[in-house]
């Protein structure tokens, strides 16, 4: 009879089915290469901007670790920074999480030698000897950060970006970036030369 299957029973069945689906069926699905947008993600979504802003300060810490930490603390950049400053590092996420994370950083940031995320750099985090009141973030100096050691000897003071680039000024985005980066590097080299001069005196 119809009376034997009422609404309570239906709801119960639905709950059982949902739980079954949730815990029995989804794990293989999730590990089977589903992207970060798949519904099964209990943690806070982390914006690339937040990851970038932590990364800029601590280029030595992997994007995966930053993302993991941000997800754990609900996307708080200050809390993440605080943790790095206190501990000197961030724990790497477990392997199951790493698989889910998409490409670490936009390739332009990661691969370019002059950019912040340059590879092959293992700066010691949190220098404990720093003075108590001074701010201690971003421990690499600019020459290291922008990979300019090789250009220190060849750089002649007074060179400006205009003199170096023979091509006429272009205003499209790509050439703006090239000129901008060159100007940035030259400013650092100039400052370094100036400081060397000041120290010699």
């Amino acid at each position, binding site marked *: 009879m119809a009376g034997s299957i009422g609404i309570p029973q239906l709801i119960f069945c639905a709950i059982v089915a949902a739980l079954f689906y949730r815990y029995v069926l989804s794990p293989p699905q999730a590990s089977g290469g589903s992207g970060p947008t798949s519904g099964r993600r209990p943690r806070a979504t982390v914006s690339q901007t937040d990851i970038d802003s932590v990364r800029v300060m601590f280029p030595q810490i992997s994007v995966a670790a930053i993302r993991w930490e941000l997800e754990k603390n609900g996307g708080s950049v200050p809390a993440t920074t605080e943790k790095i400053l206190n501990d000197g590092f961030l724990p790497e996420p477990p392997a199951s999480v790493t698989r889910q994370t998409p490409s670490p950083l936009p390739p332009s940031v990661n691969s370019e030698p002059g950019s912040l995320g340059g590879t092959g750099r293992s700066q010691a985090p949190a220098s404990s000897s720093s003075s108590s*009141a001074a701010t201690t973030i971003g421990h690499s100096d600019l020459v290291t950060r922008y990979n300019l050691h090789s250009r220190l000897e060849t750089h002649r003071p007074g060179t400006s970006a205009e003199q170096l680039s023979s091509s006429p000024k272009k205003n499209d985005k790509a050439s703006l970036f090239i000129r901008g980066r060159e100007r940035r590097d030259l400013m650092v080299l100039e400052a370094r030369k100036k400081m060397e001069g000041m120290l010699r005196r």
Partner: protein
Amino acid sequence: MFIGQQHHAPNTILKLSLNFSLQTAATMAAKAARRLLSEYRELINNETDGIYAGPISEDNFMLWECLIAGPPDTPFEGGMFSATLKFPDDYPLSPPELKFTCEILHPNVYPDGTVCISILHPPGDDPNMYESASERWSPIQSVEKVLLSVMSMLAEPNDESGANVDASKMFRDDRARYENIVRRCARKTVGL
């Protein structure tokens, strides 16, 4: 069926309003990106001595890195101080946030590197009313003006609005030690 129908209507409204706010946010962000591109172009084409600013990555115009040269005849001289500029989606209505990414000791820089000066504050929230509206943030300000203000802030700290209490105290009571630490910070920025 019955339960499903009950939830249907509010869901649609929620989706619609979400869609709407997403669209508004998208137009605002697009506006901000356009404005930032033109500011960037201006900065690169008309170089201002001692400052550099530009997006960290080509695909995110809302996060910039910048360099500010230590002003001459101050203990900051010779240093090149790096910072990040984080722009809100409604830039230029709201000001960017400027944060030093190098070691720096200054009365108006919080220990986490965030800079506290009037040009970075929107005209609305000054409980003490000691900053005049004209020197606060408004859409006619620009990245260049912000960086130049920070440069003059480095030269002339305002020890009345101390963001870093220790630094303010040291600046007032033990100037020699303050200048020594600042000089060391400046050397460090260029790896010396």
